[in-house]
């Protein structure tokens, strides 16, 4: 369990230097997210969605401001410490699935567990359980190239689930999928949030996908332009 709120952004800015010019993908963002929330992060391309997600997962550090996730100021950690922290608290689901092609579904799901102090038997239990949750118990020995896009994404979600993270970061998880598979993945994410109380931050362009979340955050040119409580609107 993480201390509440699970995410705090305090005047977070990110500046890149590219081709002699400064690019500001995020500018003075301040926001708070509670544990168990399901937040959709929306905005046009280049609005800073992925940068925000990378800061949340400790893959990147802010140029200024504080990113506090699970009570930890990520900027205060070294690259090594952030990797260890990520392993314990965060899991990613990418648009392109990002499974390792040489590993089977089971081995992909087990991979982050090898970084944890678990026995082989415990790793096996966790991995199989995660695959069962995503409905792929019968595909454990298949390699990614033997699975459909929707199945690959489900394996990616199982990999994210296996280590029981506090925070699930999904970057356009339905972007490469057909409508049917996209619906399946969204149902799965909703179930994970509802049944397993996983905090989910979902980046998407698709308003229909975003509508599954409790809250929508809209970014434009690196600035938080709208914060919509979808859950209460629905009510």
């Amino acid at each position, binding site marked *: 369990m993480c201390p509440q709120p699970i995410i705090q952004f305090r005047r977070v800015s990110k500046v890149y230097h590219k081709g002699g010019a400064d690019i500001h993908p995020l500018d003075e963002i301040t926001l708070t997210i509670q544990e168990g929330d399901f937040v959709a992060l929306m905005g046009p391309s280049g609005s800073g969605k992925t940068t925000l997600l990378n800061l949340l997962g400790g*893959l990147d550090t802010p140029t200024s401001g504080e990113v506090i996730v699970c009570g930890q100021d990520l900027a205060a950690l070294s690259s090594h410490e952030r990797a260890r922290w990520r*392993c314990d608290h965060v899991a990613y689901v990418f648009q392109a699935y*990002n499974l390792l*092609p*040489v590993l089977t579904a089971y081995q992909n799901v087990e991979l982050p567990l090898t*970084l944890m102090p678990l026995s082989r038997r415990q790793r096996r239990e966790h991995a199989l359980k995660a695959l069962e949750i995503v409905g792929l118990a019968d595909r454990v020995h298949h390699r990614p190239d033997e699975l459909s896009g929707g199945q690959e994404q489900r394996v990616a979600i199982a990999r994210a689930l296996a280590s029981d993270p506090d925070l699930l970061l999904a970057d356009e998880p339905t972007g490469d999928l057909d409508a049917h598979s996209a619906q399946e993945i969204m149902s799965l994410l909703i179930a994970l949030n509802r049944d397993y109380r996983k905090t989910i931050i979902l980046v998407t362009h698709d308003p229909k996908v975003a509508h599954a979340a409790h809250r929508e955050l809209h970014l434009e040119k690196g600035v938080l332009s709208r914060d919509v409580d979808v859950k209460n609107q629905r009510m």
Partner: protein
Amino acid sequence: MRLLLLNLLRKPLRTLLTVFGVGVALFLFCFLEIVLAAFNAGVDMSDASRLVVQHKESIIFELPMAYRSLIEQTEGVAGVTTASWFGGLSQEPLANGEKREEFFAQFATDIERYLALYPEIEVPADQLRDLLSDQMGCLLGGKIAERLNKKVGDRLVLRSTIWTQKNSSTIWEFNVRALYTTGSPTFDETMMLIHEKRFDEARQFGRGSVGLYILSIADPERSAEISAAIDARFANSPYETRTMTEKAFNLQFVGMIGNFQFLLRSIGSAVVLTMLLVSANTMMMSARERTREMGILKAIGFTDGHVFLLLIGEALAISLLGALAGVGLAWLLANALHYNPKPDFFPIFYLPGRSMLAAVGLAALTGLLSGVVPATAGMRLSATEALRSV
């Protein structure tokens, strides 16, 4: 570890070809080491407690037999024997009536004294007794006996390229009375020892002389002093001497082949450098192809150190697999199957343990060097950049 192994199998043909390349290079390296070891075998078998006395001008000049007792009287000398090069070729009759001539080393010596100086030589007691009681007898190394297909009791005919008998014949006959073995891989097992007494009495010229003296000394640290004393004793005589350690004596022969060793070492170095470049190229190509995967690993919690170890481990694994193949094949050929392409030229042909270690060390070094660039790049790679790559 599993990921490392699976990555190696990702492109099996490429991995196989790289391992093969490293293996061939290390096999060649080992083969050159075998040849160098063969050249240096005499040096390696040298003992610090043995000195050799030869004619001051050249080894081809003889020394008087009378020197033996004078050398024995020198303070610090524990034992003395002689050795005269016989220069014979074996005469094996062929089916077509011609003879097959085979070259190997033969020395006329006082066999009993010789064996006392060389405890490395092991002769069965009963065979030794027969050998010492038969002046026509000879002692053969186990390997040359096998090559000539001779056993105890057989006759061995040699044609000397130097010595004629009193009847003007260059054909000498001997009885194989004993076979010797040694416990050391660097000791020559292709020698033949014959009785000096019979040799001296039967030869047409050169009687009363010997090729060189071999002596043992009680204290190896006094070798320079004892050598100087012996040479001083015969200074200004018609047969001045040059005394040196057995190692220095044997190094003279190695020196005769000039810069051949340097040439071999240069080839070996070029081979290793090529191997390094091939391996480095493969590792960099392999790492570049997996930039995105490194990003994935980092995103799911693998540290920069994990990525570094994974890539360096793959490079090491490829190099060490190559070492296993190359060194293993060289060991199998030379040490297990006793393959020798030129047994008359290389009496000792084996892959020394230190060379195997050197080859494995080289492989490890190659793996580390070829892996360090992609591994460092992988370690420094930002996860966000890596995940953006296609």
